[in-house]
């Protein structure tokens, strides 16, 4: 699956959806990029924390997974377009019947995987549907 340094290196990016933004062309990147494909060497990249709300662009429900994920089947995987523009791949926690293209989702903090019973626990971001989940009244 992963290793401790490989997981650790991306902790803030995976816990808090920290990506990058090119202030030269105003394009947002998540997962983060160090080079802006629009501006390449003239890019002006800075960290950017995404709000996390997004839309399901396409999705699948996985019934047959790799060994690391086989205890979690069936689970939904989707390509999600964040409101700021970039797209990412992530799990959407809901019934396979519930997920659909165009569904609005928001981030939650979950276990992404574990290195067996003895190894470390990989935490990070998954998504839940905005409808049908707890909806606070905002002032």
């Amino acid at each position, binding site marked *: 699956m992963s290793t401790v340094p490989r997981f650790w290196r*991306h902790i803030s990016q995976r816990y808090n959806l920290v990506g990058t933004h090119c202030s030269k062309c105003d394009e947002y990147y998540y997962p983060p990029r160090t080079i802006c494909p629009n501006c390449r060497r003239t890019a002006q990249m800075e960290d950017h924390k995404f709000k996390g709300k997004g839309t399901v662009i*396409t999705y699948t429900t996985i019934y047959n997974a790799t060994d690391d994920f086989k205890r979690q089947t069936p689970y939904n*995987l989707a390509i999600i377009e964040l409101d700021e523009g970039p797209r990412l*791949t992530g799990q959407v926690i809901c019934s396979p019947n519930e997920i659909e293209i165009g569904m609005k989702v928001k981030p939650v903090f979950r276990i992404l995987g574990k290195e067996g019973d003895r190894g470390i626990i990989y935490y*990070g971001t998954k998504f839940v549907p905005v409808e049908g989940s707890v909806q606070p009244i905002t002032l």
Partner: protein
Amino acid sequence: MRSVSIIGAGCTRFGERWEDSLRDLVVETGIMALEDSNVSGEEIDGLYVGNMSGGRFVEQEHIGALISDCAGLSRLHVPSTRVEAACASGGLALRQAVLAVASGYSDVVIAAGVEKMTDVTGGVAADALAAAADREWECFFGATFPALYAMIARLHMHRYGTTREELAQVAVKNHHNGSMNPISQYQMEITVEKVLRSPLVADPLRVLDCSPITDGAAAVVLVPTKIAHKYSDAPIKILATAQASDTLALHDRRNITTLDATVHAAKKAFGQAGLERKDIDLAEVHDAFTIGEIAAIEDLGFVEKGEGGKAAEEGLTWIGGKLPINTSGGLKACGHPVGATGIKQAYEMVLQLRGEAGKRQVEGAKVGLTHNVGGCGGTALVHILSR
């Protein structure tokens, strides 16, 4: 640049080759290709071998030296190079061999491909294959290869009205072709109903939408066209070799239902060959999943975007149709030993263009195209071959 031709080809039977190791497969196919091309070991200038993951499947790297050694060429110290582009490793090996001969550096070059996949469990194999996707930003969140193609399929169905039955038709056609190919992993025909009743792997894709785990190897021998007739009565000319890349992760693509790498490689290949789409008599395309063939015939420019689903159902891509696709059975039925697939596609094209494809022969086949994809479109290779 010199014109390059294939003077001989070999391919092992594809399948679960329990008795045979990676080395056995390499030797088997090497002998076939050399006998078919009438070259001696001393003449060989170079070897290129496509292999995706010897490290994960049989815990063996350094496949270049290994195959030269296994083929008995170690004392000749022939330069031997492994190339890797995930499932397009074979196609890339072919391209490297073509470039070596075309440039004038080498005269007799072998392009091979090999993958021994059944020495590990299904879960390990799935994870090794998933390494062709973005490990940090796709696989880390639970993505598998079928899942990525399933997301392409879902969006294709949503956008273009492609149906579940149309996906199944691709598998039905390719199993039909495979049943006429003696090296094919699957020899049985299937029905649409059977595809639709097979277990879900990654919705909407089912088991019978997916290519299998396969052991196999293939090899072709290349020389300058100018001297090809010295070795073969029916050399096959390589009219184009093109390669393109795209983002590693599916979510970063300009358009999730279009493999831009395929579009770009095809454009370059048709330019090189000076041909149009209608000049192609048949093609072997990368149908690791049924949606893969539908997207491929669209992205290669054979049908309009969104029209690929209808092709198999309406008979266009069957043998006897206007453009037979995957006469070998494709990756779906013939099998998909990942590193070998790109070379097997060339092998099938050699048989077809020579008129040696038996029951699945496409009548009057003169020009064929092969299309090999790495990952879900991070790399694409297109070759055009003619008799």
